[in-house]
């Protein structure tokens, strides 16, 4: 009998319910799934800490966008994943996210190097089941969208560093340049400089942010 200890974190109970339903319906005969669920960063953190002392989780499902913890130290599933990586070194970490933007995918892969990376929008229950079993036996499992993104940017000769990717991402969100310093730890002039470099890199002739975003999106950086 294989006991698999699982943590599922998502702010929508109905999603956790969906995961549970899927996994329960598709588990193997010899597997017993013990599932803990958390809807907030705080409760998730609590469960992680507790499990590290008692019985470590085998698999953790983290949603990326979560309401931040009450002390503000944990702001997303990414942070939870990082904590899990340190205190539960053997746990398989699966990131499930609505985000399908290239920047986030890159940053998550780089920061966490998760054992599974699934995009909610193109996830079906059978794929989830397949991914779960695949990860248990031979991680990692990245959904096709994720691996496509990763492939595309590896092929691309343009190198865009982390900060520039963030700038592009924030601009694409419709943020104004003057608000960027609030989100990126850089001075206004440094950001302006980087934007200029980016425009040069993507050969934007009209100097418009809009054209930059469009070009970056075309080349798969967003």
């Amino acid at each position, binding site marked *: 009998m294989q006991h698999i200890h699982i943590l599922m974190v*998502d702010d929508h109970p*109905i999603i956790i319910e969906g995961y549970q339903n899927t996994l329960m319906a598709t588990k193997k005969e010899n597997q017993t799934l013990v599932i803990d669920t958390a809807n907030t960063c705080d409760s998730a953190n609590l469960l992680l800490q507790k499990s590290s002392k008692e019985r470590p989780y085998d698999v953790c499902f983290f949603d990326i966008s979560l309401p931040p913890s009450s002390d503000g130290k944990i702001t997303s599933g990414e942070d939870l994943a990082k904590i899990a990586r340190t205190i539960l070194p053997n746990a398989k970490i699966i990131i499930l996210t609505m985000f399908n933007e290239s920047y986030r995918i890159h940053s998550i892969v780089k920061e966490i190097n998760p054992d599974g990376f699934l995009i909610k929008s193109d996830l079906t*229950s059978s794929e989830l089941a397949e991914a779960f079993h695949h990860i248990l036996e031979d991680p990692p499992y990245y959904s096709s969208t994720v691996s496509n993104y990763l492939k595309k940017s590896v092929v691309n000769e343009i190198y865009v560093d982390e900060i520039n990717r963030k700038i592009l991402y924030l601009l694409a969100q419709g943020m104004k340049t003057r608000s960027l310093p609030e989100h990126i730890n850089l001075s206004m002039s440094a950001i302006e400089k980087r934007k200029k470099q980016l425009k040069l890199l993507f050969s934007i002739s009209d100097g418009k942010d809009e054209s930059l975003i469009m070009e970056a999106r075309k080349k798969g950086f967003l």
Partner: protein
Amino acid sequence: MVKTFLIALIFGFFIIHTDAQNATSQSIDELISKSKDASISVEERLEFANQSVQVAKKTGKDSLILLANRNLSLMYYYTEDFDKYVSINQKNKNLATKLKDTSALAVASFNLGSYYKYDRQNDSAYFYLSKALKYYSSLKNLEQKSYILMSIADLQYNEKDYTSSEANAIEALRILEKLPKTENNLDNFWILYNRIADISSELEQYQKSIEYHEKALEITKKMNDGFLDGVYTTNNLAFVYRQLGNYDKALELYESLLPQRSQYQDDDPTFYALIINNIAYTKLLSGDVEYDKLLEDFYTAYDISEKYDDEVTKMAVTTDLSKLYLQKEQLDSAYKYAQETYKISKSLSSNEYVLDALMVLSKTKTGEEGKAYLYEHIRLSDSLLNIERNHKNKFARIEFETDKITAEKERISQQRMWLMIASAVLLVTLFLLYIIVTQRSKNKELQFEKDQQKANEEIYNLMLSQQDKVDEARANEKKRISQEIHDGILGRLFGTRLSLDSLNFSEGKEAIQNRSNYIKELKTIEEDIRKISHDLNTDFVSGSGFTDIVSELIDKQTKAYQLEYAFDYDDDISWELVSNKDKINIYRIIQEAMQNIYKHAEASKIKISIASKNNVILVSIEDDGKGFDVNKSKKGIGIKNINSRVNELDGTVDFDSEINKGTVITIKVPYKTNP
């Protein structure tokens, strides 16, 4: 081609023009010289002179007119047309004054003076002659100067102002001394010596008189043509001796003239009569009683004077005769001749003879008749004495008065000058003041415009920043909605889908139950989407921009002015479709109106509303202040400003105010939506 022709034409015209002018001045000269031609008749010469004046008048040049006039004056003199002579000289005098032509002025004054002297208008004569004297003095024309002095001395002598006359005569002599001894000048010497001798004799300075007569006699000897003058002087000298009572000497002188009769008979035929009369009378005075002999001489003299119709000589003869008869006590004859003397002397205005005649007459008649003559004598001599007294300083007076007039004139001209300077200074000051004032008001206007522009800019910026705020709020709202969809709806959809998907693996009642639960969940998601869709449809920020600014303005201003306020506005107006210019004007009108309320109304509450009705934006500003008279206060700056702004908006404004009840300003602006 045409140009050259034109230039030639203009040039040609110019030449012709100057030629014409030359021609006229030539023709004037020609006419004048023709009028001086002594070989033609005086009438023709006068005609030429007149023509020259006509031509000169046509040129309109004063100098030419004066030239022609002077010639014409000469012609009037020749033709003895003295009325015209006087009037033309008056004209010339004025022209010369205008042209500052001193020599012409001197001539005209001299002509006038001479004429008046001739006409015995002594005052006028003196006036003009003394003027002429001044002009000739300034021209340094000594000859004329001495001649005029002589004429003035003459005038003064005739008016019995002997001292002045003598002084002028001596002055004239002094000038004459400096001049060459021409015949004419010598003649003048003679006249002057004679004049001084006469004066001395009148003043009973007989020795001096004799002295001057002898000087005169000396002069006649130097003259080429001095015979007649010498004869007269001898006669005069004899008269002085007779006055002195030196009858022998007088007789000797008189009798020396008798043999020379043939030499003066032609020139002065009655002179001989005068001499024999004088001899006879001197003899009578010296106590000769051979009356028959004397009478014979008197009658000879009387006949001669009668024959040549010489009233003056006859008068002298009849006087002396009447005196002889009086002495002889033949009163009838004395009366007869005295009467004759009286008649002649009256007609000649020779007062001394009148007096003599009256004296004789009074003695020829006894009683009342005699007394009557005596009274007449006394009356006449008194009046003469009076006249004499009055005349004594007349010329001094005339001179003084002219001096006074000149001084007055000078004073007036000086006054006028000061007045002119003062008014010029005043004018300049006023002009400068005007410039300063206009400049200042211009500056003020510019400053005002600048301020206005600045205020408008501020409002514009305010509106822009408001727009920014609106835009940002919109963006935030968009983000919020997107987040809501992304995180909430999508998540739940995903969860539901995943669960429904997983239910495919199981069958049975439980599964059906579960499915219906998830389908219910889908329904609530539907509901949420509808809600979000509704949120998207209502633009919560739309239109709030301008009213927000206005409300901020009202809030700030009323706080500063410590007023209570109510602000109502209509959400129906799409302010983003109203032009910025109009919005700025509405904003400014509200600002201005509130300022006015604060400054003048003493209000405690104001109510402002903005509404739209039938495509008109209605702005009303109401206060509970003391109000004002709408008709009287139309000119106030605040009201003017509001009016001009409303005009810019193509709107109308209505001030409705009641004393102590408050004011309502209603502004109607067309709701022009410019896309």
